[in-house]
């Protein structure tokens, strides 16, 4: 039910594997803290793997936007990977799908960084 995050490095890119729910409270806070921690340590190429995220609310959407803009403002890049249908549909109706750089293949996502 709750959210779990783990990070790994692939060719200089940090993959954040997310599972569970990104919702108001713990899930949103974990996402925010993880991205800020990565940026503070100089990891500015970030992929959020949302393949195991089964639920997201408006606060979670806000956290994705915050992660995207915070990374960009610090000279980094953040991409989204493996959207579930629920998350994909939510990003479509909120018109955020084209704002984010969305990938469905990890190797392609890693390769896409400049």
């Amino acid at each position, binding site marked *: 039910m709750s959210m779990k995050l783990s990070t790994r490095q692939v060719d200089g890119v940090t993959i954040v594997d997310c599972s569970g729910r990104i919702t*108001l409270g713990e899930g949103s806070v974990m996402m925010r803290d993880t991205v800020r921690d990565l940026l503070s340590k100089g990891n500015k190429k970030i992929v959020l793997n949302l393949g195991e995220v089964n639920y997201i609310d*408006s606060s979670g*959407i806000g956290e994705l936007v*915050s992660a995207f803009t915070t990374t960009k403002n610090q000279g980094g890049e953040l991409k989204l990977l493996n959207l579930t249908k629920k998350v994909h549909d939510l990003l479509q*109706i*909120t*018109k955020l799908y084209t704002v984010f750089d969305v990938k469905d293949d990890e190797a392609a996502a890693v390769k896409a960084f400049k």
Partner: protein
Amino acid sequence: MEQTISYTLDSTLETVDHAEESATRIATELGFPEDEVMQISMAVREGAVNAVLHGNAYAPDKKVILAFEHTQEDLVITIRDQGRGIDLGCIPNPLAPENLLKTSGRGIFLMRSFMDVVEIRPSQTGTEIKLIKHVHGPSGGGKEGSQ
């Protein structure tokens, strides 16, 4: 057969989860298809977030009243808070290009996206949000009477 279930809840995050779980359970029991159950539960969650955060501002002395009413035609969910009321004129359009990258302000939009009717009645003694899903209505898209 009509049936009403009502809860009086504290202004906490647990209330938000409880509201969502209740909506999921009731919509499932009423036979809504899976995609509509998800829409109803998300809309109720957003309504509860609105009541707990923006309405009651987590105040321990203020309650959230959540009611589910099932008629032959509709599932009607009412969420009331005891806050100062929201100014609907001050809610920006989250789809406007200048608002797309804002980190908040999508809750009411999502409620309107997922339900057939959304009525919001703000007052000095609180806000009432009424969410209606037609039992045999269109899924998702078609809204009517949204305020």
